[in-house]
Protein backbone atom coordinates (compact mmCIF):
# COMPACT_ATOMS: atom_id res chain seq x y z
CA UNK A 1 0.00 0.00 0.00
CA UNK A 2 1.41 3.29 -0.94
CA UNK A 3 0.12 6.71 -1.72
CA UNK A 4 1.16 8.21 -5.00
CA UNK A 5 0.00 10.43 -7.82
CA UNK A 6 -2.94 8.08 -8.43
CA UNK A 7 -4.63 9.95 -5.60
CA UNK A 8 -4.46 13.26 -7.44
CA UNK A 9 -5.57 11.70 -10.70
CA UNK A 10 -8.56 10.09 -9.04
CA UNK A 11 -9.49 13.34 -7.30
CA UNK A 12 -9.52 15.10 -10.65
CA UNK A 13 -11.53 12.29 -12.18
CA UNK A 14 -14.00 12.40 -9.29
CA UNK A 15 -14.35 16.16 -9.60
CA UNK A 16 -15.01 15.86 -13.33
CA UNK A 17 -17.61 13.16 -12.77
CA UNK A 18 -19.37 15.31 -10.17
CA UNK A 19 -19.28 18.32 -12.47
CA UNK A 20 -20.69 16.28 -15.36
CA UNK A 21 -23.45 14.86 -13.21
CA UNK A 22 -24.34 18.27 -11.79
CA UNK A 23 -24.61 19.88 -15.20
CA UNK A 24 -25.68 17.24 -17.69
CA UNK A 25 -27.48 14.46 -15.84
CA UNK A 26 -29.23 15.54 -12.67
CA UNK A 27 -31.09 18.66 -13.89
CA UNK A 28 -32.50 16.97 -17.00
CA UNK A 29 -33.83 13.92 -15.23
CA UNK A 30 -35.21 15.81 -12.23
CA UNK A 31 -36.85 18.26 -14.63
CA UNK A 32 -38.55 15.41 -16.49
CA UNK A 33 -39.69 13.90 -13.21
CA UNK A 34 -41.02 17.19 -11.87
CA UNK A 35 -42.82 17.96 -15.12
CA UNK A 36 -44.39 14.54 -15.03
CA UNK A 37 -45.49 15.12 -11.45
CA UNK A 38 -47.17 18.35 -12.51
CA UNK A 39 -48.81 16.59 -15.45
CA UNK A 40 -50.11 13.81 -13.25
CA UNK A 41 -51.42 16.31 -10.72
CA UNK A 42 -53.18 18.22 -13.50
CA UNK A 43 -54.59 15.00 -14.90
CA UNK A 44 -55.97 14.01 -11.53
CA UNK A 45 -57.45 17.49 -11.09
CA UNK A 46 -59.05 17.32 -14.53
CA UNK A 47 -60.50 13.90 -13.79
CA UNK A 48 -61.92 15.16 -10.50
CA UNK A 49 -63.38 18.21 -12.23
CA UNK A 50 -64.86 16.08 -15.02
CA UNK A 51 -66.44 13.82 -12.43
CA UNK A 52 -67.97 16.82 -10.66
CA UNK A 53 -69.25 18.19 -13.97
CA UNK A 54 -70.76 14.85 -14.84
CA UNK A 55 -72.49 14.76 -11.47
CA UNK A 56 -73.84 18.28 -12.04
CA UNK A 57 -75.07 17.34 -15.49
CA UNK A 58 -76.75 14.23 -14.11
CA UNK A 59 -78.48 16.30 -11.46
CA UNK A 60 -79.61 18.82 -14.04
CA UNK A 61 -80.94 16.13 -16.33
CA UNK A 62 -82.82 14.54 -13.44
CA UNK A 63 -84.32 17.91 -12.49
CA UNK A 64 -85.34 18.58 -16.06
CA UNK A 65 -86.94 15.18 -16.43
CA UNK A 66 -88.85 15.77 -13.23
CA UNK A 67 -90.00 19.16 -14.46
CA UNK A 68 -91.01 17.75 -17.84
CA UNK A 69 -92.99 15.02 -16.15
CA UNK A 70 -94.76 17.59 -13.98
CA UNK A 71 -95.51 19.68 -17.05
CA UNK A 72 -96.88 16.69 -18.93
CA UNK A 73 -99.12 15.82 -15.98
CA UNK A 74 -100.35 19.38 -15.85
CA UNK A 75 -101.06 19.39 -19.59
CA UNK A 76 -102.95 16.12 -19.35
CA UNK A 77 -104.96 17.47 -16.42
CA UNK A 78 -105.83 20.57 -18.33
CA UNK A 79 -106.79 18.50 -21.38
CA UNK A 80 -109.07 16.40 -19.19
CA UNK A 81 -110.63 19.51 -17.76
CA UNK A 82 -111.10 20.99 -21.18
CA UNK A 83 -112.64 17.78 -22.47
CA UNK A 84 -115.03 17.77 -19.53
CA UNK A 85 -115.91 21.37 -20.15
CA UNK A 86 -116.57 20.69 -23.82
CA UNK A 87 -118.68 17.71 -22.97
CA UNK A 88 -120.67 19.70 -20.39
CA UNK A 89 -121.22 22.47 -22.85
CA UNK A 90 -122.28 20.04 -25.55
CA UNK A 91 -124.69 18.43 -23.14
CA UNK A 92 -126.13 21.78 -22.14
CA UNK A 93 -126.44 22.82 -25.78
CA UNK A 94 -128.18 19.59 -26.59
CA UNK A 95 -130.62 20.09 -23.75
CA UNK A 96 -131.34 23.66 -24.91
CA UNK A 97 -131.77 22.49 -28.49
CA UNK A 98 -134.05 19.68 -27.46
CA UNK A 99 -136.16 22.05 -25.40
CA UNK A 100 -136.30 24.47 -28.25
CA UNK A 101 -137.38 21.77 -30.69
CA UNK A 102 -139.89 20.49 -28.20
CA UNK A 103 -141.32 23.96 -27.83
CA UNK A 104 -141.44 24.38 -31.58
CA UNK A 105 -143.19 21.06 -31.93
CA UNK A 106 -145.67 22.00 -29.23
CA UNK A 107 -146.33 25.28 -31.04
CA UNK A 108 -146.90 23.37 -34.26
CA UNK A 109 -149.20 21.00 -32.54
CA UNK A 110 -151.07 23.87 -30.93
CA UNK A 111 -151.45 25.72 -34.21
CA UNK A 112 -152.47 22.58 -36.02
CA UNK A 113 -155.05 21.88 -33.36
CA UNK A 114 -156.28 25.41 -33.71
CA UNK A 115 -156.54 25.04 -37.45
CA UNK A 116 -158.26 21.74 -37.11
CA UNK A 117 -160.66 23.24 -34.69
CA UNK A 118 -161.45 26.08 -37.03
CA UNK A 119 -161.85 23.69 -39.91
CA UNK A 120 -164.07 21.56 -37.81
CA UNK A 121 -166.07 24.58 -36.86
CA UNK A 122 -166.55 25.42 -40.50
CA UNK A 123 -167.45 21.86 -41.34
CA UNK A 124 -169.90 21.74 -38.46
CA UNK A 125 -171.53 24.82 -39.87
CA UNK A 126 -171.82 23.18 -43.26
CA UNK A 127 -173.04 19.92 -41.72
CA UNK A 128 -175.51 21.83 -39.66
CA UNK A 129 -176.78 23.56 -42.72
CA UNK A 130 -176.94 20.28 -44.56
CA UNK A 131 -178.68 18.69 -41.63
CA UNK A 132 -181.06 21.54 -41.28
CA UNK A 133 -181.81 21.58 -44.97
CA UNK A 134 -182.54 17.90 -44.86
CA UNK A 135 -184.69 18.49 -41.89
CA UNK A 136 -186.44 21.37 -43.57
CA UNK A 137 -186.58 19.42 -46.78
CA UNK A 138 -185.74 22.27 -48.77
CA UNK A 139 -182.96 24.14 -49.99
CA UNK A 140 -181.94 26.88 -47.78
CA UNK A 141 -180.17 29.57 -49.48
CA UNK A 142 -176.71 29.63 -47.82
CA UNK A 143 -176.22 33.20 -48.73
CA UNK A 144 -179.64 34.22 -47.33
CA UNK A 145 -178.88 32.59 -44.11
CA UNK A 146 -175.21 33.29 -43.97
CA UNK A 147 -175.46 35.61 -41.06
CA UNK A 148 -177.37 32.99 -39.17
CA UNK A 149 -174.88 30.25 -40.02
CA UNK A 150 -171.89 32.40 -39.06
CA UNK A 151 -173.50 33.08 -35.79
CA UNK A 152 -174.06 29.37 -35.35
CA UNK A 153 -170.46 28.57 -36.26
CA UNK A 154 -169.16 31.15 -33.80
CA UNK A 155 -171.30 29.63 -31.09
CA UNK A 156 -169.85 26.14 -31.64
Amino acid at each position, binding site marked *: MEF*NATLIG*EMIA*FAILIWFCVHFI*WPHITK*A*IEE*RQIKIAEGLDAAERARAELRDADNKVAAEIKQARAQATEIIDRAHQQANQIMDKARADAVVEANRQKAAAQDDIASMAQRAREELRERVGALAVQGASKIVQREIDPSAHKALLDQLAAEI
Partner: protein
Amino acid sequence: MASEPQGGLTEYITHHLQHFKPLRMSPEGFWSVHIDSLTVSLVLGIVFCLWFWAMARKATSGVPGKGQAFVEIILEFVDGQVKDVFHGDRSFLGPLALTVFIWVFLMNAMDLLPVDLLPWITHQFGIGHFRSVPTADLNLTFAMSITVLLLVIFYSFKAKGFGGYTHELFTAPFGAHPALWIPNFLLNIVELLSKPVSLSMRLFGNMYAGELVFMLIAGLFSAGSWWLYGMGVIGYTIWGIFHILIISIQAFIFMVLTIVYISMAHDHH
Protein backbone atom coordinates in the same frame (compact mmCIF):
# COMPACT_ATOMS: atom_id res chain seq x y z
CA MET B 1 -3.13 -18.60 -12.18
CA ALA B 2 -2.79 -17.86 -15.83
CA SER B 3 -0.17 -15.21 -15.37
CA GLU B 4 2.09 -17.17 -12.99
CA PRO B 5 1.80 -20.89 -13.51
CA GLN B 6 4.53 -21.65 -10.97
CA GLY B 7 4.57 -20.76 -7.31
CA GLY B 8 2.27 -21.34 -4.42
CA LEU B 9 -0.84 -19.63 -3.16
CA THR B 10 1.11 -16.91 -1.40
CA GLU B 11 2.91 -15.98 -4.56
CA TYR B 12 -0.35 -16.08 -6.49
CA ILE B 13 -1.95 -13.67 -4.07
CA THR B 14 0.99 -11.32 -3.72
CA HIS B 15 1.26 -11.27 -7.48
CA HIS B 16 -2.40 -10.31 -7.73
CA LEU B 17 -1.94 -7.53 -5.23
CA GLN B 18 0.63 -5.77 -7.40
CA HIS B 19 -0.59 -2.69 -9.21
CA PHE B 20 0.06 -2.08 -12.85
CA LYS B 21 2.58 0.76 -12.96
CA PRO B 22 4.32 2.44 -15.84
CA LEU B 23 7.80 1.11 -16.31
CA ARG B 24 9.48 4.08 -17.94
CA MET B 25 8.28 6.64 -15.43
CA SER B 26 9.44 6.30 -11.87
CA PRO B 27 8.09 2.89 -10.83
CA GLU B 28 8.33 3.76 -7.16
CA GLY B 29 7.82 6.89 -5.14
CA PHE B 30 5.07 9.45 -5.27
CA TRP B 31 5.07 10.09 -8.98
CA SER B 32 4.35 6.55 -10.00
CA VAL B 33 0.72 5.91 -10.73
CA HIS B 34 -1.56 2.91 -10.60
CA ILE B 35 -2.61 2.70 -14.20
CA ASP B 36 -5.01 -0.17 -13.49
CA SER B 37 -6.98 1.79 -10.87
CA LEU B 38 -7.05 4.89 -13.02
CA THR B 39 -8.10 3.01 -16.15
CA VAL B 40 -10.85 0.95 -14.57
CA SER B 41 -12.24 3.86 -12.55
CA LEU B 42 -12.20 6.18 -15.54
CA VAL B 43 -13.83 3.62 -17.82
CA LEU B 44 -16.53 3.01 -15.23
CA GLY B 45 -16.94 6.74 -14.67
CA ILE B 46 -17.39 7.23 -18.39
CA VAL B 47 -19.84 4.32 -18.51
CA PHE B 48 -21.83 5.97 -15.74
CA CYS B 49 -21.76 9.38 -17.43
CA LEU B 50 -22.68 8.12 -20.89
CA TRP B 51 -25.41 5.85 -19.60
CA PHE B 52 -27.10 8.50 -17.47
CA TRP B 53 -26.43 11.22 -20.00
CA ALA B 54 -28.07 9.20 -22.76
CA MET B 55 -31.12 8.75 -20.54
CA ALA B 56 -31.11 12.39 -19.42
CA ARG B 57 -30.85 13.68 -22.99
CA LYS B 58 -34.01 11.94 -24.18
CA ALA B 59 -35.76 12.12 -20.81
CA THR B 60 -39.42 12.76 -21.39
CA SER B 61 -41.98 14.04 -18.95
CA GLY B 62 -44.50 11.78 -20.68
CA VAL B 63 -44.55 8.02 -20.36
CA PRO B 64 -40.95 6.96 -19.63
CA GLY B 65 -39.28 3.99 -21.28
CA LYS B 66 -37.87 1.14 -19.24
CA GLY B 67 -34.34 2.55 -19.33
CA GLN B 68 -35.48 5.99 -18.25
CA ALA B 69 -37.68 4.51 -15.55
CA PHE B 70 -34.72 2.54 -14.18
CA VAL B 71 -32.51 5.61 -14.12
CA GLU B 72 -35.32 7.61 -12.51
CA ILE B 73 -35.79 4.97 -9.82
CA ILE B 74 -32.10 5.20 -8.90
CA LEU B 75 -32.23 8.98 -8.99
CA GLU B 76 -35.39 9.18 -6.91
CA PHE B 77 -33.87 6.76 -4.41
CA VAL B 78 -30.74 8.88 -4.07
CA ASP B 79 -32.78 12.07 -3.97
CA GLY B 80 -34.93 10.59 -1.21
CA GLN B 81 -31.84 9.81 0.85
CA VAL B 82 -30.56 13.35 0.38
CA LYS B 83 -33.98 14.80 1.18
CA ASP B 84 -34.17 12.88 4.44
CA VAL B 85 -30.90 14.30 5.73
CA PHE B 86 -30.43 17.64 4.04
CA HIS B 87 -33.03 20.40 4.00
CA GLY B 88 -31.91 22.86 1.40
CA ASP B 89 -31.06 23.22 -2.26
CA ARG B 90 -30.26 19.74 -3.53
CA SER B 91 -29.01 20.80 -6.97
CA PHE B 92 -25.41 20.01 -5.96
CA LEU B 93 -25.68 17.49 -3.16
CA GLY B 94 -28.12 15.36 -5.17
CA PRO B 95 -25.85 14.80 -8.19
CA LEU B 96 -22.86 14.42 -5.88
CA ALA B 97 -24.59 11.62 -3.99
CA LEU B 98 -25.70 10.02 -7.27
CA THR B 99 -22.17 10.12 -8.66
CA VAL B 100 -20.73 8.61 -5.47
CA PHE B 101 -23.35 5.89 -5.34
CA ILE B 102 -23.18 4.73 -8.95
CA TRP B 103 -19.44 5.14 -9.38
CA VAL B 104 -18.57 3.32 -6.16
CA PHE B 105 -21.11 0.63 -6.94
CA LEU B 106 -19.71 0.05 -10.43
CA MET B 107 -16.14 -0.05 -9.15
CA ASN B 108 -17.12 -2.42 -6.34
CA ALA B 109 -18.92 -4.56 -8.87
CA MET B 110 -15.61 -5.25 -10.59
CA ASP B 111 -15.05 -7.55 -7.64
CA LEU B 112 -17.75 -9.80 -9.06
CA LEU B 113 -15.75 -10.45 -12.22
CA PRO B 114 -13.64 -13.58 -11.94
CA VAL B 115 -10.47 -12.47 -10.12
CA ASP B 116 -8.28 -13.69 -12.95
CA LEU B 117 -10.30 -12.36 -15.88
CA LEU B 118 -8.92 -8.84 -16.29
CA PRO B 119 -5.37 -9.80 -15.26
CA TRP B 120 -5.47 -12.65 -17.78
CA ILE B 121 -6.64 -10.31 -20.55
CA THR B 122 -3.96 -7.74 -19.75
CA HIS B 123 -1.40 -10.55 -19.55
CA GLN B 124 -2.12 -11.29 -23.22
CA PHE B 125 -0.93 -7.75 -23.90
CA GLY B 126 2.21 -8.22 -21.86
CA ILE B 127 1.05 -6.49 -18.69
CA GLY B 128 2.00 -8.67 -15.79
CA HIS B 129 0.19 -6.97 -12.96
CA PHE B 130 -3.37 -5.74 -13.01
CA ARG B 131 -5.83 -5.12 -10.17
CA SER B 132 -9.35 -4.78 -11.40
CA VAL B 133 -11.07 -3.31 -8.31
CA PRO B 134 -10.24 0.38 -7.97
CA THR B 135 -12.03 0.67 -4.62
CA ALA B 136 -9.55 -1.84 -3.20
CA ASP B 137 -6.88 0.78 -3.86
CA LEU B 138 -6.39 3.25 -1.01
CA ASN B 139 -5.48 5.96 -3.51
CA LEU B 140 -8.95 5.90 -4.98
CA THR B 141 -10.89 5.70 -1.72
CA PHE B 142 -8.80 8.48 -0.22
CA ALA B 143 -9.15 10.53 -3.39
CA MET B 144 -12.92 10.37 -2.99
CA SER B 145 -12.96 10.97 0.75
CA ILE B 146 -10.49 13.86 0.55
CA THR B 147 -12.64 15.43 -2.16
CA VAL B 148 -15.59 15.04 0.19
CA LEU B 149 -13.52 16.62 2.99
CA LEU B 150 -12.69 19.57 0.76
CA LEU B 151 -16.39 19.93 -0.02
CA VAL B 152 -17.21 19.77 3.70
CA ILE B 153 -14.70 22.56 4.41
CA PHE B 154 -15.95 24.57 1.46
CA TYR B 155 -19.59 24.28 2.52
CA SER B 156 -18.70 25.05 6.14
CA PHE B 157 -17.16 28.31 5.03
CA LYS B 158 -19.97 28.97 2.61
CA ALA B 159 -22.75 28.33 5.12
CA LYS B 160 -21.19 30.09 8.10
CA GLY B 161 -18.90 32.61 6.48
CA PHE B 162 -15.14 32.72 6.99
CA GLY B 163 -15.38 34.35 10.40
CA GLY B 164 -18.28 32.21 11.52
CA TYR B 165 -16.59 28.93 10.69
CA THR B 166 -13.24 29.99 12.15
CA HIS B 167 -15.04 31.11 15.28
CA GLU B 168 -16.80 27.78 15.47
CA LEU B 169 -13.54 25.87 15.05
CA PHE B 170 -12.13 27.57 18.14
CA THR B 171 -15.17 27.90 20.36
CA ALA B 172 -17.17 24.71 19.80
CA PRO B 173 -17.84 22.31 21.40
CA PHE B 174 -16.41 23.26 24.83
CA GLY B 175 -16.97 27.02 24.96
CA ALA B 176 -15.61 30.39 24.04
CA HIS B 177 -13.14 30.78 26.93
CA PRO B 178 -9.65 31.64 25.55
CA ALA B 179 -8.09 28.76 27.44
CA LEU B 180 -10.34 26.40 25.54
CA TRP B 181 -9.44 27.62 22.11
CA ILE B 182 -6.63 25.17 21.55
CA PRO B 183 -8.53 22.08 22.81
CA ASN B 184 -11.52 23.10 20.74
CA PHE B 185 -9.46 23.55 17.65
CA LEU B 186 -7.57 20.28 18.09
CA LEU B 187 -10.79 18.38 18.65
CA ASN B 188 -12.37 19.93 15.57
CA ILE B 189 -9.35 19.05 13.45
CA VAL B 190 -9.45 15.46 14.67
CA GLU B 191 -13.17 15.32 13.97
CA LEU B 192 -12.67 16.78 10.54
CA LEU B 193 -9.82 14.44 9.64
CA SER B 194 -11.54 11.37 11.01
CA LYS B 195 -14.27 11.78 8.41
CA PRO B 196 -12.22 11.03 5.29
CA VAL B 197 -10.20 8.37 7.09
CA SER B 198 -13.25 6.43 8.26
CA LEU B 199 -14.98 6.95 4.93
CA SER B 200 -12.14 5.65 2.81
CA MET B 201 -10.80 2.99 5.16
CA ARG B 202 -14.25 1.39 5.48
CA LEU B 203 -14.70 1.10 1.74
CA PHE B 204 -11.11 0.06 1.13
CA GLY B 205 -11.16 -2.52 3.91
CA ASN B 206 -14.33 -4.17 2.71
CA MET B 207 -13.24 -4.32 -0.91
CA TYR B 208 -9.69 -5.38 -0.18
CA ALA B 209 -10.86 -8.14 2.14
CA GLY B 210 -13.46 -9.22 -0.40
CA GLU B 211 -10.86 -9.38 -3.13
CA LEU B 212 -8.53 -11.35 -0.88
CA VAL B 213 -11.22 -13.90 -0.05
CA PHE B 214 -11.95 -14.32 -3.76
CA MET B 215 -8.24 -14.96 -4.36
CA LEU B 216 -8.03 -17.47 -1.53
CA ILE B 217 -11.02 -19.35 -2.91
CA ALA B 218 -9.59 -19.16 -6.40
CA GLY B 219 -6.46 -20.77 -5.00
CA LEU B 220 -8.55 -23.88 -4.36
CA PHE B 221 -9.05 -24.33 -8.12
CA SER B 222 -5.39 -25.21 -8.56
CA ALA B 223 -5.00 -27.13 -5.29
CA GLY B 224 -4.72 -30.33 -7.28
CA SER B 225 -7.79 -32.14 -6.06
CA TRP B 226 -11.23 -32.41 -7.64
CA TRP B 227 -12.79 -32.27 -4.22
CA LEU B 228 -11.09 -28.96 -3.42
CA TYR B 229 -11.97 -27.74 -6.91
CA GLY B 230 -15.63 -28.44 -6.18
CA MET B 231 -15.33 -26.68 -2.83
CA GLY B 232 -13.77 -23.75 -4.67
CA VAL B 233 -16.68 -23.54 -7.09
CA ILE B 234 -19.23 -23.65 -4.28
CA GLY B 235 -17.27 -21.23 -2.12
CA TYR B 236 -16.76 -18.79 -4.97
CA THR B 237 -20.49 -18.83 -5.72
CA ILE B 238 -21.55 -18.31 -2.12
CA TRP B 239 -19.01 -15.56 -1.51
CA GLY B 240 -19.96 -13.93 -4.81
CA ILE B 241 -23.63 -13.84 -3.87
CA PHE B 242 -22.79 -12.48 -0.44
CA HIS B 243 -20.50 -9.94 -2.02
CA ILE B 244 -23.36 -8.51 -4.10
CA LEU B 245 -24.82 -7.41 -0.77
CA ILE B 246 -21.50 -6.00 0.44
CA ILE B 247 -20.76 -3.94 -2.66
CA SER B 248 -24.27 -2.43 -2.60
CA ILE B 249 -24.11 -1.67 1.11
CA GLN B 250 -20.66 -0.13 0.85
CA ALA B 251 -21.72 2.08 -2.06
CA PHE B 252 -24.82 3.06 -0.10
CA ILE B 253 -22.88 3.81 3.09
CA PHE B 254 -20.33 5.91 1.23
CA MET B 255 -23.17 7.90 -0.35
CA VAL B 256 -25.12 8.38 2.89
CA LEU B 257 -22.05 9.44 4.86
CA THR B 258 -21.11 11.89 2.14
CA ILE B 259 -24.59 13.39 2.40
CA VAL B 260 -24.45 13.45 6.19
CA TYR B 261 -21.02 15.09 6.33
CA ILE B 262 -21.94 17.80 3.85
CA SER B 263 -25.30 18.49 5.44
CA MET B 264 -23.55 18.69 8.83
CA ALA B 265 -21.32 21.34 7.33
CA HIS B 266 -24.46 23.44 6.85
CA ASP B 267 -25.52 23.09 10.47
CA HIS B 268 -24.61 25.72 13.00
CA HIS B 269 -23.35 24.67 16.39
